[in-house]
């Protein structure tokens, strides 16, 4: 019964979304306040209906209702409760419902937090958001209904893919979707502004918090996915340039560009058309990502649905929304005249450079991801584009971005001077080169990747700190400057933390790629082997039974100069219901390195295949990503205050500056 109600709520939500996407739009055109006001309740009701539907599906999973075909294929009575719940979105239909739920949530948030928006803009934003809702609700109801019943329910389910039964992956999709779908808000704002034919500083200020929130969620989602890949897939890699990873990375890059260009719109009323274009593209890449993951056209480790009908439908959504928005853009972009003028060397130019580098790097990832498809369809060449290509084609952009970041971040608006801008950064530059040379000297005969990472990381991190310190005022007494730190706006804190996080991430990525130690060998129980400066002993291997799996668990002792550092228990599991083996690496997390052990197959001579890694600075990678997200969050808390302040000054939405 609850399941039927959930299904029904979804159909009602579609009806509400249709109203939401039309009535406020017509109202805004005719300046009819009553029609415009329909958007608010419609968005909230749509959210409540989809929320109920989601709750109904969750209920079916929690109670293991095997009359539902989705529950049968993705759940099992023995599965731990947390994975029964995460099983709701561990499949195509359920994850799509989560997608739509978050979409509706953002629409409702625009109502709740957007009380100060000019009514016309808000009505149009909600209408566009409603249109996206219509498209995805239709998609779900027509091709991917999660509420399909089975005539003859089986006694038990087929279990969730064991790889997905993991805390990291349980929370990875919700964060990722919050990011993907959050970008729909920036898109709706962009399209609403195009319909209105006006972009001003206030628009820049309104669109920034949504983009920032989406970007923060995407950052966390991508980091969680990468962390999961690191500890779960069993060879210590953290990024594979897999199409699905790229699908989340492209919108992240564009959103990062959008964040920065929206600052220029807000502060300087320049780059308006470009910012609108980025907002459209950011959501466009989210849709491309959805297409890649769900159509199965570009295959990947975690693509769930391989159904051409679904692919065609998403392509249709992509075509309608991108085609419509870009046509509107072509017609209206000319009207977006820039007000602020700036010199060749200025903060604005630096942000333009940031935007070009981020957008082009996103384009490189996009091109590499779809190239196999294009080459096969158009040129009849079956080829692969993988890690070596992306490493070679993408990295130069990151190097360039990191190289100009500290200087650009300290550049004054309108007109700057390279020499003057560099002056406070000289110590950082010298320090970064010195540390890089030290790393070069210590690592005889390896690639230059590590030292380059040190130079860039120190340069970016140090630059962020110097920039932040410079904001406390020049020449003042130390005590006064320290006291001023606490009074600096949150946005300044956010900038420092996020840029610093990028520096840490760049350093960690190159350190992990350059200085990883690997050892693969056969070890007899009781035997030992050296691993870097450690000694590892395979104490014993035993069979252990888990709640819904059987495990072969090794006990391994890691010592350094005779002192025990860690006792690790790497496992190989078999999930009998899903019939799938998984590898559970055992990791001793450390500040400077992780010791990463994987147990392999038994050998004929009684030994075990063992793979061991020392992953240098692995934790720094996740810490760097977290810092970036934290920086965004800090900046967001500042934003909210300023949105309210800006809107108070201009209650009727007249441009603020």
């Amino acid at each position, binding site marked *: 019964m609850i399941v039927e109600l959930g299904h029904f709520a979804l159909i009602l939500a579609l009806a509400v979304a249709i109203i939401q996407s039309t009535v406020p739009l017509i109202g805004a055109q005719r300046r009819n306040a009553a029609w415009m006001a329909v958007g608010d309740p419609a968005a909230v009701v749509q959210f409540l209906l989809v929320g109920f539907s989601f709750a109904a599906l969750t209920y079916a999973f929690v109670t293991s209702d095997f009359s539902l075909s989705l529950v049968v294929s993705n759940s099992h009575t023995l599965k731990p409760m947390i994975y029964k719940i995460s099983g709701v979105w561990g499949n195509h239909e359920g994850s799509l419902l989560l997608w739509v739920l978050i979409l509706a949530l953002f629409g409702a948030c625009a109502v709740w937090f957007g009380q100060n928006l000019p009514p016309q803009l808000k009505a149009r934003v909600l209408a566009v958001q409603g249109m996206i809702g219509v498209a995805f609700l239709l998609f779900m109801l027509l091709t991917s209904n999660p509420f399909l019943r089975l005539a003859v329910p089986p006694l038990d389910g087929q279990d969730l893919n064991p790889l997905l039964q993991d805390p990291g992956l349980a929370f990875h999709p919700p964060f990722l979707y919050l990011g993907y779908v959050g970008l729909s808000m920036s898109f709706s704002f962009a399209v609403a502004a195009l319909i209105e034919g006006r972009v001003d500083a206030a628009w820049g200020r309104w669109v920034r918090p949504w983009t920032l929130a989406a970007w923060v969620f995407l950052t966390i989602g991508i980091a969680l996915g990468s962390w999961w890949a690191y500890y779960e897939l069993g060879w210590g890699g953290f990024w594979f340039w897999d199409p699905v990873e790229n699908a989340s990375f492209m919108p992240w890059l564009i959103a990062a560009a959008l964040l920065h260009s929206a600052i220029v719109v807000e502060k300087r009323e320049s780059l308006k058309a470009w910012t609108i274009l980025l907002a459209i593209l950011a959501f466009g890449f989210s849709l491309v990502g959805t297409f890649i993951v769900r159509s199965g056209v570009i295959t990947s480790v975690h693509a769930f649905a391989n159904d051409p009908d679904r692919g065609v439908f998403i392509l249709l959504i992509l075509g309608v929304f991108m085609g419509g928005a870009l046509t509107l853009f072509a017609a209206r972009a000319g009207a977006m005249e820039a007000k602020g003028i700036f010199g060749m060397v200025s903060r604005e130019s630096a942000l333009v450079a940031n935007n070009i580098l981020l957008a082009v790097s996103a384009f490189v990832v996009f091109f590499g991801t779809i190239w196999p498809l294009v080459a096969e369809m158009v040129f009849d060449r079956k080829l692969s*584009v993988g890690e070596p290509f992306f490493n070679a084609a993408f990295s130069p*952009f990151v190097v360039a971005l990191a190289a100009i970041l500290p200087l650009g971040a300290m550049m004054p608006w309108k007109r700057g001077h390279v020499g003057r801008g560099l002056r406070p950064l000289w110590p950082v530059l010298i320090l970064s080169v010195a540390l890089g040379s030290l790393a070069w000297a210590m690592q005889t005969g390896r690639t230059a990747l590590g030292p380059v990472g040190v130079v860039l990381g120190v340069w970016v991190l140090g630059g962020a700190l110097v920039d932040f310190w410079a904001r406390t005022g020049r020449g003042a007494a130390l005590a006064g400057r320290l006291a001023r730190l606490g009074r600096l706006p949150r946005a300044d804190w956010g900038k420092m933390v996020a840029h610093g996080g990028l520096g840490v991430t760049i350093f960690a990525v190159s350190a992990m790629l350059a200085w990883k130690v690997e050892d693969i060998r056969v070890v007899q129980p009781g035997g030992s082997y050296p691993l870097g400066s450690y000694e590892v002993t395979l104490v014993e291997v035993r069979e252990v039974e888990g709640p819904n799996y059987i495990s072969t668990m090794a006990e391994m002792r890691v010592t350094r100069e005779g002192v025990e550092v860690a006792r690790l228990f790497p496992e190989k599991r078999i999930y009998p219901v899903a019939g799938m083996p998984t590898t559970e690496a055992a990791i001793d997390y450390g500040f400077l390195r992780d010791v990463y052990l994987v147990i392999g197959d038994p050998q004929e001579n009684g030994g075990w295949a063992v793979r061991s890694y020392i992953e240098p600075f692995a934790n720094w990678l996740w810490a760097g990503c977290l810092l970036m997200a934290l920086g965004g969050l800090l900046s967001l808390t500042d934003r909210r205050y300023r949105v309210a302040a800006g809107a108070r000054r201009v209650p009727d939405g007249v441009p603020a500056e």
Partner: protein
Amino acid sequence: MSAARKGGWGMRWGGGLKPALWPGLSPALQSALFGLALLVAAPVQAVQPDEMLADPALEQRARDLSKGLRCLVCRNENIDDSDAQLAKDLRILLRERLVAGDTDEEAVAFLVDRYGEYVLLNPPATGVNILLWVAGPAMLLAGVGIAFATFRRRGQGRAEELTEAERARLAEILKE
């Protein structure tokens, strides 16, 4: 690589490797097959100790090359990381070639002859692939060019020179 050798090895193709999983299959079908294989096949993990060559230098070359070769039945995974049986076969095949004295290029060419360029994770910059490699730099140049042109057109001129009316207004203000 000589034609004679090409022919010789060509006839051996099909021995240990599954022709059913030839790259000519659509990716979707391959992934479906891979999904099935996962259900039935015993787990085989990435590089195994018994596959490794005794000579560390040779083994290192094999590892480096493996990272650029695709496991054909997997999704964008290299044969060094892949757990699939085919990846294991390819790893062994590659090592056989290296032991037989092939250079890196010859060993890779040997695999490309059999599996097509699909096996290369780093697409060679030949023919239309040149598009792939120049796309990024070309976009960068275009972006910088457009930014520069736009800047030239509307930014600088106005920033440095005042119009007649502005100059008059300025004089007025200064007088006050």
